[in-house]
């Protein structure tokens, strides 16, 4: 026999479940039923949701996506390292290292202030244009450099927040044991800082996975460019929808996981 309180809570729970389910169904039904009534729907369907085009182009898109993943995989560790170095440069306390600190500041200001696509264009065409021999003028190399420069500026700021969020008492405790500054940073502050900013960094790396597609502007035929080629040949946007689906298959789980980590950290802190 449930208590009065339990009976009440069961009732409330059931009621909200019914309302939530009902409103979700209602919205879905409205989309599914109303959108096709729009006068332009047959055209949109043919151009964006064309099953035949989808089937024809999807395998090619998957092949091209391998480039996106590869570029991501070799960029991410470089971004992590450079971001860390820049964050450390910005934390340098000794006056001799002041130029380093200044550099770190300018670096993060500049690369966070310029759109990624501009950095990719300028570096991707500009530096090889100086006359580098092959294969050192490859757009893959300089596109990667552009991504690394831009993203490490963001990652550096995240790391810096992490470093600053480690309580001062941890520095004091480590220093009181006689550890030198370098060791305090390496063994005490950084391991905690890096852990604290994992969710924030994951969000950046998810954004990176998407921005890899911008390298297509300087030549590499990754998924976005491949989709563009199909679009142009078939005069149909369905390949873009296919590309979006492939991106989502990677980014949705990653985003969910980052949110989960963040929620977990919040729980632990309280």
């Amino acid at each position, binding site marked *: 026999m449930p208590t009065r309180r339990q009976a009440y809570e069961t009732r409330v729970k059931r009621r909200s479940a019914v309302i939530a389910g009902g409103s979700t169904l209602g919205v879905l039904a409205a989309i599914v039923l109303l959108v096709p009534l729009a006068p332009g729907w047959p055209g949109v369907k043919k151009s964006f949701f064309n099953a035949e085009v989808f089937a024809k182009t999807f395998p090619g898109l998957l092949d091209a996506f391998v480039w996106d993943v590869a570029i991501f995989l070799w960029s991410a560790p470089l971004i992590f390292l450079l971001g860390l170095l820049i964050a450390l440069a910005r934390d340098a306390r000794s006056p001799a290292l002041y130029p380093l600190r200044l550099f770190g500041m300018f670096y993060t200001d500049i690369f966070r202030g310029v759109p990624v696509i501009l950095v990719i264009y300028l570096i991707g065409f500009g530096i090889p244009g100086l006359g580098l021999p092959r294969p050192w003028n490859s757009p893959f190399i300089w596109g990667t450099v552009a991504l690394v420069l831009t993203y490490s500026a963001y990652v550096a700021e995240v790391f810096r927040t992490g470093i600053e969020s480690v309580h001062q008492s941890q520095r004091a405790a480590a220093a009181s044991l006689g550890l030198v500054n370098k060791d305090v940073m390496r063994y005490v502050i950084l391991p905690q800082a890096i852990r604290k900013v994992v969710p924030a960094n994951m969000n950046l790396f998810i954004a990176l996975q998407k921005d890899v597609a911008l390298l297509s502007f300087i030549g590499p035929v990754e998924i976005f460019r491949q989709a*563009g080629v199909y679009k142009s040949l078939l005069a149909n946007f369905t390949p873009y929808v296919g590309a979006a689906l492939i991106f989502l298959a990677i980014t949705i789980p990653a985003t969910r996981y980052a949110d989960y980590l963040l929620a977990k950290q919040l729980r632990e802190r309280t």
Partner: protein
Amino acid sequence: MRLLLTTILSSLVATGAFAQNYCAAGKTLLDNKLTVATGNPAYFPWVMDDAPESKNGFEAAVVYAVANEMGFADSAVVWTRSSFDQAIQPGVKDFDFNVQQFSITPERDEIVDFSAPYYAAAMAVLTRKTVVDKGADTSIGALKGLIWGADANTTAVPMLADIVQPDKEPLLYGDNADVVEAMKANQIDAALFDLPTALYLSAVVLEDGVVLGQFPAERSENPDEFGLLFEEGNPLKECVDAALETLKQNGTLAALETEWLSATTGVPVIE
């Protein structure tokens, strides 16, 4: 008296009153106006100096010839700009037709309509002197070994894959300017363009540019023919087709080709 007549006549022309008697009446976006879209920017030698209203350049000249043929005065031609994507997106268009070297393909024809072709383009290989010096010639074997680039929105892409079949995956770009930039950066050896574009780029844009040769139109499975692009089912198409047919018959089209694209003769053919 004569002055009066001219004035009346020209005002009739200006308001497009002529058009009323012709096929296009009531089929255009704006009454008595012909709205034509081209690229942003529009490239030489199709449109000179990115100014189609100057009537200079092959496509600009063709558009005015077609317009006049349909009964529109020059002043009734209204220019607008569009990207490739805007040209093929579903929905209402903001142009009567769009001209920017659209190759006619059956797949594209399912989504939009094309006029009869106004130009049959040979594809040409643009490269640099340094590449030629290193021994690149017009043999397919030599071409295979080059690093290729192309504008991703053109039929050059399938042509590369079908005819050249390069050893290395080609690099593709969003527009001509980027292809040239990549060539200057020595990231690609050669690029495939329609012949007039290739000639223009080699003469004006790329300092040591060379047109290595051309693929005659019949070499590709579907010869590359340019058509004016319409929204699917646009009734104006038949009027434009009729006008183009007339221009072809009376030699106007050929004359315009000679006037604007004459340099295309004498480029070696790739076997």
